[in-house]
């Protein structure tokens, strides 16, 4: 079933199509009468039968090229662009929707950067930020003068349906990329749709259309060739407008958004039922959330090794872009088992201690984060003793968010070792510590 509004938009489109058919016929030298007749036929077709036409990429492009803009982050001193993205008219004539990561440099250093739009015909002007949703990587910007009619938005089509992404890749000019809907990703907390097509830098923030020419998503990121991600437009519709003028206030709002998200996300894990898995003599939590995937990470055994080593590494794909050096929302944990029946305990522990060296991997530097503060305790977990360390460092511009590193190494066995490492990026510390305790409770020694 097609709703009335969808039907109407379809017809609007057909009228346009009829217009271009007419122009084409006129240019080929047909008499004006036949041109009018053909146009009338198309319109008749539209008003009477209203079939669900699948539009091709050329039509979608021509219809929407004036509604898609380039968004530049411009250095106030040099007047040159620092980064580029795309945006499209959304909700109001003077408003563009784009990605948070397109405008994040401005939020981080508003004294250094400003936002500007550039249209396909070269018109440009300043933009002001009116709303952000860092968790879903969305932002809204406004200009003083209207851009045009807002594009119509809707829900994504079924898996396998055609999608068309528009944007300005690498500043090469506005293009459209065809692909298919790869479905909603459960790894990413339902907030990402897999787009089996090519997105490239600069296309971020541009609209993704279905074959009816309706915006169903916002281009957001790419993993590798033809594996790209889009954000469903429903998050755009629920994006609340922040009534603030200063970038600092946007940072506070972003901190709050991410904290709320992390609390919800981690609490969801804590409340969930976890499958257990066995690693030699330990029973341990498996994938603690549908967003988490576990892989075998055991090193390749060699004949000369006098020990056996196995590991399982689990990770979510919920990387939320905060700044170019801070990706938050990462949940990464690994279990490592090591045993030997040939090494003496002294020799075994040399190796075991060398493996107990977990460090937090991140691009953050002194501008972004404080130092790690650590606390080491011995804990009894279902009869086994562990040397545990929890380390945390808070974010400088986003107080209330921290990186948390936890590590626990089993002690008290001569030639058996077990290490658990957990990394959580940009998280709420209290929620993180509750998750750690819940995970530790799941450790069980199998005699």
């Amino acid at each position, binding site marked *: 079933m097609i709703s009335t509004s969808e039907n109407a938009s379809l017809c609007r489109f057909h009228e346009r199509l009829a217009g271009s058919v007419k122009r084409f016929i006129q240019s080929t030298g047909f008499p004006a009468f036949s041109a009018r007749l053909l146009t009338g036929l198309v319109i008749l077709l539209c008003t009477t039968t209203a079939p669900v036409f699948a539009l091709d990429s050329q039509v979608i492009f021509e219809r929407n090229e004036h509604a898609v803009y380039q968004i530049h982050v411009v250095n106030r001193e040099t007047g040159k662009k620092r980064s580029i993205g795309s945006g499209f008219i959304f909700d109001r004539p003077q408003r563009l929707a784009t990605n948070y990561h397109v405008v994040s440099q401005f939020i981080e250093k508003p004294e250094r950067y400003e936002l500007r739009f550039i249209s396909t015909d070269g018109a440009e002007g300043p933009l002001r930020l009116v709303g952000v949703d860092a968790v879903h990587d969305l932002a809204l910007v406004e200009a003083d003068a209207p851009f045009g009619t807002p594009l119509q938005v809707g829900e994504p089509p079924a898996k396998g349906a055609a999608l068309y992404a528009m944007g300005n890749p690498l500043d090469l000019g506005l293009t459209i990329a065809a692909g298919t809907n790869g479905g909603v990703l459960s790894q990413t907390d339902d907030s990402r749709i897999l787009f089996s097509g090519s997105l490239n830098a600069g296309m971020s923030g541009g609209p993704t259309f279905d074959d009816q020419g309706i915006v169903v998503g916002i281009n957001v990121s790419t993993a590798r060739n033809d594996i790209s991600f889009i954000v469903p437009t429903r998050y755009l519709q629920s994006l609340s407008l922040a009534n603030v003028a200063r970038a600092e206030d946007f940072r506070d709002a972003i901190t709050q958004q991410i904290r709320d998200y992390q609390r919800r996300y981690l609490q969801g894990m804590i409340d969930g039922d976890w499958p257990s898995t066995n690693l030699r003599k330990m029973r341990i939590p498996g994938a603690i959330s549908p967003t988490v995937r576990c892989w075998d990470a055991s090193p390749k055994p060699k004949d000369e090794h006098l020990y056996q080593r196995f590991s399982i590494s689990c990770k979510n794909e919920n990387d939320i872009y905060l700044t170019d050096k801070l990706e938050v929302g990462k949940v990464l944990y690994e279990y490592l088992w090591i045993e030997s029946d040939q090494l003496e305990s002294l020799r075994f522990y040399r*190796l075991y*201690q060398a493996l*107990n060296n977990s460090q937090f991997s991140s691009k953050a530097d002194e501008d972004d984060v404080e*130092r*790690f503060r650590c606390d*080491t305790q011995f804990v009894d977990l279902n009869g086994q003793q562990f040397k545990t360390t929890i380390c945390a460092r808070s974010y400088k511009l986003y107080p209330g968010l921290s990186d948390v590193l936890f590590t626990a190494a089993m002690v008290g066995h001569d030639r058996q070792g077990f290490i658990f490492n957990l990394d959580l990026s940009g998280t709420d510390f209290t929620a993180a*510590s509750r998750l750690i305790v819940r995970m530790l409770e799941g450790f069980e020694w199998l005699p």
Partner: protein
Amino acid sequence: MASLMVEIPGRHGVQYHRIDKPSVRLGRALDNDIILADPSVSPYHCVVRRNENGSYALHSLADENGIRVGGRRVDDAITLDRLPLEFDAGRTRIRILDPAQMVAPTRMISCHGGSVCVFGNWGWALLLFSVLTLLSAFDNYLSTPLTLTWQSFWRDQLIIMMVALGLAVTLLMINRITSHRWDLPSSLSFVSLLLSTALVLDLITPFADYFFTSPLPGFIVALAWSLILLPWAMGWFLVRLNHGNTAASIVFVVALLLPAAYYQLKEIVSHYDLLDTFSKRSFYSDTLSPWDKRLQNTLSIDEFAAKSMPLASPDAADR
């Protein structure tokens, strides 16, 4: 004063000349009584003359660089009634001494029941070197969790033995410069003893770190080693065994060991955040011990959740 002594330093030690003639001339020309082979000395530089009353005086003969006492040029005669007199003829520093002056007490070569015996004896040198070889082999064995083959084992083992021999040869050079002897046993014993001590400390300190659940014992030992023990041992070696000049030995030891001490201090500063500098690393006690001996007691999971967690919170750790 019947006679005087003139002390002239040379590349291979000092030379002494007795002055018992009424006039003794010093200079670069070959018909002088004392010939000074220094291009900054004049052919006839100065003369020591006995006065009628039996006392001596030093007269400058040189126009070019002349005679300097305490850095100041003196062209007048200098009466030699207060000895020793130290002066510069060109770039050569000469001392005029009273033969009756006291000399420093004899340095004993104490090898009768004294610890110094260990150094300077080939038997001890080889024994200590063997101890070092065994210790490093043990360490090598502990840190290789693989099937050991002779080839792989000796490849690592040879490195530390070569380092030990290289250090011994370096000390041998110092020994040659300061005491004009080639004394390989003492430098080999000394190097072997030092490296063995370092290996033993490396073996022991992780247990202390685990016992106290803190890297502090390791830091203290490392710092004491590079700031106190090693400088003291090197100074002792240079002064006692090589009879080196004390001040020069101190300067040498400080210059040689300063980088190591700096590195140790930096580690501690970084670990305890004494300068509040950023670090990508998280510093925590990562030692593990096969004998689970420690001061810290074990918490239950509930105690851990209640007590320990807020400690690591960034808010609580705020200064």
